[in-house]
């Protein structure tokens, strides 16, 4: 193993450091091979299931698709993601909801899907034991311990011994206990060598690794096959781990995992509830916003299925439209259902020209060069501009009928105190001016021609800076950039770990980024690289755990 020193400039940039406009970093030496990262592992606190994970888990285990988590408290959102381990904590409200959900689920499973939890027909003690061990294993994502089995058996028998209690009632109550146990609600991780003070990293126990794997790739619990392999000690073998990652990615459930990331990263969930100013856009209806969201989700799924690369996402020529969206994208003769159309350049190309995406990055009454520019810098280049200086009144210019948005925002950013950073943000956003706040294509605004010339002013990647005209040109340039690939890789790694990345992740992150780049930006290869990294497979050892 060799020690590796973290290059502060690059890791700061890669981790979306917000402290200031980035400087060009020193060139990085290539990362060490997989499995050879050293240094103390970063700690991930034990993770509570998110609402989506809870629902997916009970859907996979019991076939319950009733959206049981509907009224669970909303997760805090950190860095755009809903799975921040530190912030996601139980409250009085959440334990109440867990109780309600456990009662509803146990009742419906026992009455209508009993075979999912009781793998035998009799009402004997042996059958009870089978129920406890198989269902306990599925819910706790490992074989239950002798103590757990004894506790559940005692409870089961107590229920059975109470007046008028039936075998099924005992199953139902015991299931309620399991569903409210921390072993189900949290992802427990102890590491394979607990108690050692001296090791800086300890590999995860195989079942813990299986759980990390399935919640990353499926947003759900491991299946029996994965648990079997883990309990046979086979996931420690890198070839087997990769094979399992590939198997999970080939399964339909992986769509949920991928879409979980994209929907949070792009905030697609916000699109359907967007409102627009009816004075400016009298044709807007809430149904149009819902159509935007559906269209954007169909686009993402289509791009992931047909191509699966970052380049494809940014340069796909598809658009999914229905009759509501038709008038805004010059398509006639559409029905209520969405159908794919091929859009000509320069009007549309890829993610950045999706109507829902553009509408979200707009104000209610005008487009927003600032929000669009910040998205590109922050989410695609991991280059967050620093905040405005303290005490500056931040007022976007009001729309009016005599000027273009570009003219108004240029005036706005002419203030010397703002110009320092707006000269980085606004030129990128001005390149989106062909799209109004409904994401519709336009060539004039208030009778004046649109100027869609833009510029990336500064970037780590030397291929990025320079002038461009319109989003398709910008998208093609971003799609080829190593910096953009590195940025997406660090975002997904952050999501995988449920916490901010730290110095102890730098070596792994470099490996992951290298892997993503070498694979020509294939998302599934990025996920495999994350899975194979030391950050993913280990945790801190000793008292600091």
């Amino acid at each position, binding site marked *: 193993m060799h020690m590796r020193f973290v290059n502060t400039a690059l890791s700061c940039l890669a981790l979306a450091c917000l402290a200031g406009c980035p400087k060009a970093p020193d060139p990085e030496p290539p990362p060490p091979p997989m499995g050879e990262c050293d240094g103390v592992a970063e700690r991930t*606190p034990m993770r509570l299931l998110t609402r989506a994970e809870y629902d997916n888990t009970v859907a996979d285990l019991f076939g319950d698709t009733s959206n049981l988590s509907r009224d669970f408290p909303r997760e805090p959102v950190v860095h755009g993601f809903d799975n921040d381990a530190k912030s996601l904590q139980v409250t009085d*409200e959440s334990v109440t909801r867990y109780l309600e959900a456990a009662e509803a689920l146990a009742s419906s499973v026992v009455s209508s899907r009993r075979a999912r939890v009781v793998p035998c027909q009799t009402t004997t003690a042996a059958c009870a034991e089978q129920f406890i061990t198989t269902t306990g294993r599925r819910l706790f994502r490992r074989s239950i311990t002798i103590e757990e089995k004894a506790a559940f058996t005692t409870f089961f028998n107590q229920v059975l011994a109470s007046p008028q209690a039936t075998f099924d009632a005992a199953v139902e109550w015991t299931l*309620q206990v399991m569903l409210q146990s921390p072993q189900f609600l949290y992802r427990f991780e102890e590491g394979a060598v607990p108690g050692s003070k001296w090791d800086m990293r300890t590999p995860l126990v195989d079942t813990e690794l299986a759980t990390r794997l399935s919640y990353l790739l499926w947003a759900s619990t491991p299946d029996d096959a994965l648990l079997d392999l883990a309990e046979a000690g086979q996931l420690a073998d890198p070839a087997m781990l990769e094979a399992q990652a590939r198997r999970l990615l080939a399964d339909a459930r992986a769509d949920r995992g991928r879409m979980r990331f994209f929907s949070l990263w792009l905030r697609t969930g916000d699109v359907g509830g967007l*409102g627009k100013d009816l004075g400016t856009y009298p044709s807007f209806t809430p149904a149009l916003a819902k159509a935007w969201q559906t269209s954007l989700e169909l686009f993402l799924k289509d791009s992931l299925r047909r191509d699966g690369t970052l380049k494809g996402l940014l340069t796909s020529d598809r658009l999914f439209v229905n009759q509501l969206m038709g008038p805004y994208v010059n398509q006639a003769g559409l029905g209520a259902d969405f159908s794919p159309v091929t859009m000509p350049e320069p009007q549309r190309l890829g993610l950045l020209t999706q109507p829902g995406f553009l509408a979200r990055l707009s104000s209610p009454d005008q487009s927003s060069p600032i929000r669009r520019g910040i998205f590109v810098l922050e989410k695609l280049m991991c280059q967050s501009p620093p905040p405005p200086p303290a005490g500056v009144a931040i*007022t976007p210019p009001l729309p009016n009928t005599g000027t273009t948005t570009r003219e108004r925002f240029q005036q706005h950013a002419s203030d010397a105190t703002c110009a320092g950073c707006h000269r980085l943000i606004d030129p990128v956003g001005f390149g989106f001016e062909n799209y109004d706040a409904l994401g519709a294509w336009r060539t004039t605004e208030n009778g004046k021609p649109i100027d869609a010339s833009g510029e990336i002013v500064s970037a780590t990647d030397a291929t990025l800076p320079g002038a461009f005209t319109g989003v398709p040109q910008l998208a093609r340039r971003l799609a080829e950039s190593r910096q953009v690939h590195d940025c997406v890789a660090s975002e997904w790694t952050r999501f995988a770990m449920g916490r901010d990345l730290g110095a102890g992740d730098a070596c792994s992150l470099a490996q992951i980024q290298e892997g993503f780049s070498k694979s020509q930006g294939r998302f599934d290869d990025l996920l495999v690289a994350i899975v194979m990294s030391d950050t993913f497979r280990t945790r801190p050892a000793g*008292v600091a755990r």
Partner: protein
Amino acid sequence: MKRLSRRVVLRGAGGIAVALPLLATDSRADGGPSPRRFIASYVPNGVFTPQWFPTPGASETEFTLGPIHQPLVPYQRHLLFTRNLDMNVAIQGAGEMHQRGLGALLTGAKLNTGTFIGNDGSSSGWAKGRSIDQELVGLIGQTRIPSLQLGVNCQERDVSGVMSYSGNDGPLLPQNDPRVTFRNLFMDAGQPPQMLDEVQRRRKSVLDAVLDQVGIVKRRMGVVDQQRLDAHFTRVRDLEKRVTALPPGMCPTPMPPGEVQFLTEAAMPQVAKLQLDLVTLAFQCDLTRIVTIMWSDAKNHRGMPFLGISSSVHNITHYGDSDPGRAKLLDRDRWQMQQLASILEGLRSVTDANGTTLLDNTLVFQGSDVSRGNVHSHDDMPHILAGGGGGWRMGRFVRFNGQNHNNLLVSILRAFGGTQLSWGDPAFCTGPLAGL
């Protein structure tokens, strides 16, 4: 004998319907002291300062309310307006001005560093300390529900959307759905007694079995995760007490509210009415004594279409004082005063022990994250206190000459029996306010 006043019963239209007749009497009818309650209310992004402060008179008690505060005129003798109380703790540190102000409103603490992006692009984490409402749980919160965090269209799920903290990095997000608020309060209300007894027995045995696993699961975990598990089991233990306590028998049994599109701008008035009716009922039934309520979040990129504000309230707070668009802020501020008046009306409508009303036994604190939205100032905060729960002399307009906001927070705690001399960041607290 405690009775439900006619006014509450008749508030049904658009609000919570209450089934009559009343079933039981209040256990405090023997003349024991009434419990005291606390409500904190957060109005985002500052106020229309040119017309905010009352016109002072010859003495503290002789002030005249301005146009914004007209809805509060019937309650003037229950109000305490402050002048020159400064939220200095929020002037600097991580985060932008709205986030810092909201974070400090009840904690008196600064924000951690972190990755929440503010309106202006700055970044922060959660607040660094516990909020006074959670501290009050230990002083007055021994009820079925220790405290309630409510929201009205509070959408942000980061530091911009939280006012209550269990401690450092311990955000308690508000509940925006009146249907769920109802369930939190009246989980088993309306069940026939025999059935309720059966349900409670079953829940107790299930939760006992969950709690029996403490020793099994904690054994091999690291220190930090052991703390998480301790917190988890404490919540489950409290849940067990809650679900096995007697149902709120001295209360009217309300009907659950129907579905509301609770995270929409248009539904704000309806959601407000439902949530506030539930607060009144919760106090009346002594289900909780502590409530925080957020009127949207600190980012507040929401319109209020029912006031003719179609774009964003936040934008309106940024207009210059003489900008005609700022008249809309006046409308918003007045609407918020109507909501505050609704809170006070609800409290006054319920008779408490010894001929008092809930209003006599509740302290309401309403504040914002900044004072003037267009300059994001933290001096001269637009706070309003109301009700007799603090034991303070009300009906006053009091100057505090630049004292710290945190001094007010520690004063509130002491009013409820707290003994601390400082709250929040000690660099911004010089002790309780004199003369309350």
